[in-house]
């Protein structure tokens, strides 16, 4: 699966408009220099061979350049960014922690808020609480992330100056500044996702609450709490878990907009900068890493399916 993915990524990006050999060539570029560059970047080889070199790099490392100017990139080598003068693996390793904190914090926030609001509204369907929360969740769900992000940035930071301008530090270095920086990004993502999960949970709950076995459970005289938790929520959990797994995995690959707006040095920022610079090795590396997260999440979700809903047979 991953192998297939790497191939697709590789082929997709082998057709980028800007010739990387030309991009690194600078001014006073002659065909000879372009050719030499191409060789240095490994682009003189046919695509399949580049792909092979790339795969080999992941497992045994690879050597760049020739003569006294050569250097090695140790396994697992996802490539070397000549633009930044850094191994892709290092770049991704450095960019991962901010993204991870962003994703985890937001995830906890939105799952807690989203699922409980979903259950709550389902139980109070049709009443004003339901209508208010659903209305709000719609608003939250609808707004584009960059608008929420900019709005919060404008009011909370620029206009009212409740928080300092975001400047990421590791939580182990300066927890206070870390929370000050992460608070708004967490909220932005949580608003976006919680709204979706509220709706999803509510719909699932309503569906299952209408099922016969719920009526049976109620008729048996089980306490309402038990009915909801053991029967209602559990049966409706499948799509929630699916979505949660994929969303978390997706976020671990970087939240481009949120990271950009709040200057978080995460995978999303790295990705967008690499796109702007046509820094191919980095784009390919990030795509792979991100995709791996999602594929792994998929596997886990598939396994969870069977656990949660015994009626589902694994095909």
């Amino acid at each position: 699966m991953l192998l297939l993915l790497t191939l697709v990524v590789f082929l997709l990006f082998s057709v980028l408009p800007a010739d990387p050999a030309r991009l690194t060539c600078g001014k006073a570029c002659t065909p000879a220099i372009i050719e030499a560059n191409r060789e240095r970047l490994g682009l003189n080889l046919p695509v399949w061979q580049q792909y092979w070199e790339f795969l080999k790099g992941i497992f045994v490392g690879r050597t760049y350049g020739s003569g006294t100017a050569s250097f090695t990139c140790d396994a697992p080598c996802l490539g070397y960014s000549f633009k930044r003068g850094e191994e892709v693996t290092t770049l991704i390793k450095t960019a991962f922690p901010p993204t991870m904190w962003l994703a985890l914090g937001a995830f906890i926030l939105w799952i807690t808020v989203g699922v409980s609001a979903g259950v709550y509204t389902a139980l109070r369907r049709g009443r004003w609480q339901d209508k208010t929360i659903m209305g709000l969740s719609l608003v939250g769900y609808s707004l584009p992330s960059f608008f929420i992000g900019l709005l919060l940035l404008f009011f909370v930071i620029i206009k009212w100056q409740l928080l300092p301008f975001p400047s990421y530090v590791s939580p182990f270095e300066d927890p206070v500044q870390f929370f000050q920086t992460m608070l708004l990004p967490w909220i932005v993502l949580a608003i976006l996702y919680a709204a979706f999960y509220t709706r999803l949970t509510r719909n699932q709950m309503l569906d299952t609450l209408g099922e016969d076995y719920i009526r049976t459970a109620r008729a048996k005289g089980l306490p309402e709490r038990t009915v909801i938790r053991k029967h209602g929520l559990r049966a409706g959990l499948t799509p929630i878990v699916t979505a949660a797994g994929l969303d978390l995995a997706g976020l671990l690959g970087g939240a481009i907009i949120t990271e950009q707006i709040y200057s978080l040095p995460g995978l999303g920022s790295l990705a967008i900068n690499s796109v702007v610079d046509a820094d191919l090795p980095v784009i390919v590396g990030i795509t792979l890493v991100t995709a791996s997260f999602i594929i792994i999440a998929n596997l886990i979700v598939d396994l969870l399916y069977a656990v949660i809903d015994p009626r589902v047979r694994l095909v």
Partner: protein
Amino acid sequence: MGKAKPGVKFAVVAAAGALLLAACGGGSSDNGDSGNGDSGATKGGTITYLQLEEQFTNLDPQRVYTGEDLAFFNGTIFRTLTAYKFSADAAEGTTIVPDMATDLGTPNADSTEWQFTLRDGITWETGDPVTCEDVKYGVSRTFATDVITNGPTYAISMLDIPSEEDGSSSYKGPYTGVGQEAFDQAVTCSEDNKTITFKLSRPVPDFNYTVTLLSFAAVPKAADTGEKYDDKPVANGPYKIQEYTKGKGGKFILVRNDAWSQDSDPYRKAYPDQWSVDFGIDPTVIDQRLIAGAAADQATLSNALQPQSLPIVFNDPKFENRRINEFDPYVRYFAVNVQKVPNLKHRQAIAAAMNRDALLTNAGGAFAGDLADGVIKPNIGQDYAPTGLWEGLLGQTIPATGDPEYAKQLIADSGEPMPTITFDYPNTPTNEKAASIVVASLQAAGITAKPNPIEAGQYYGVVFDPEKAHEVINAGWGPDWPNASTVIPELFTPSGGFNLSQADDKDFNANVDAAKIESDRAAQATQWQELNKYAMEQVFAIPTRFGRDQRLPGEKLGNAYLWPAYGAWPYGDMYVTQ
């Protein structure tokens, strides 16, 4: 005037507009403490440099080619044979003084051979002496064009080393050693390893300006790691690199280099104890911090202010003594691709139609600079003379808002159908608006026009490719030293490195070659003035503005003026007031 970031990086900066470039300037010059007021200059303290970029484009001396970086590294870690004088004055600040060399160099009669002798006591941070061989090795690295990218290539075009058929040098750099003998003949060291001699393929009367570029800085062969030298080069200036971590939150810290002695370096003042560069700071945050001026940020500096900070800084008298609003070394222009628009009348029509006034307003009005009349900027000095481009050079006077009717008439006179004009520009919000103005200007004259946005980071990679470049190309350029020999030949001849116009006019080329080797500087200046005028008449380019730069240094910074040599801070001259 100065060195420019040669197009490659520079124009990207210009291009990246909203994100990277403040680019706009008010009329009056508010420069608080210009000049070399050394009174009160004291040693000590740390100067903090807030960088929006996540790393230096390059740190390897042979690969550095942006004005700000050249000024910074030259003032702190890398010494060159000669260097620009520290001064805010446009004339004085672009004259050269000896640095590693004992004097300004000795040319032979026809300036084809230049000799520089090194001072005594210059050492690397390791304590080893800096020798002629080190300088020679440094220069040789430029020839390894597959590893040493981005840097200026004057060594290749000026040194007397045979070229191959495709125009590349027969010397391939020290890593492969191909053609080493030819190089060893062109650059020689004396017995005592103190005197270096450069043999040039043509007369270069101002070669001692060329060697101010870091590409002529020394590199110790034993420490050269090729590609990786870009991360940790060896210093021979008053500071050495203590830390370099890239990325947002990364730092570049310079501490005193104990092996450096003031005796061997009368040029650099080396006032602060430390320099600290913080990478990847949001430009809004940078401005916010400079404007707020909290205690921790008073010895802080950064580059150009963001457009939205300008009204704040320039409408508040509180900043009167700090704010800086000066011309930078750059000319912004649209290259007109003569291969794609071969008809002169068509090119003139494009120029006549252009609403330059709207473009200037869009770039930031008065903060952005003045309307331009050529690719040579007045602050270069003697090489500038008004070209009269808009006062009749195109056949009649053209108002700043453009003259679509006259453009239509020129097209009609041409007798040929006007080609469709595509405008290449780096994709940023400000440039998008500029593109709208360009398209609207051309359409008003009945010309079919299309915008073509290109990702900012890939911009020059694309437009340098003759296959991919279109008719009109957004660009910017500043001279590498105060001689239009670093402008006209670069921009408008096939051998130039920035010939986006694809110009190849035989007479023009011959005149350029003659001007290049003219040893009478005044005569040479007249020739550049004529060539600039001719290039404008031929509409190789449409100059849109002479740019300005606005900055706000921290309150406690001394000698915080815009150094005309590079359009940058005079890093080697700055101090922290105690």
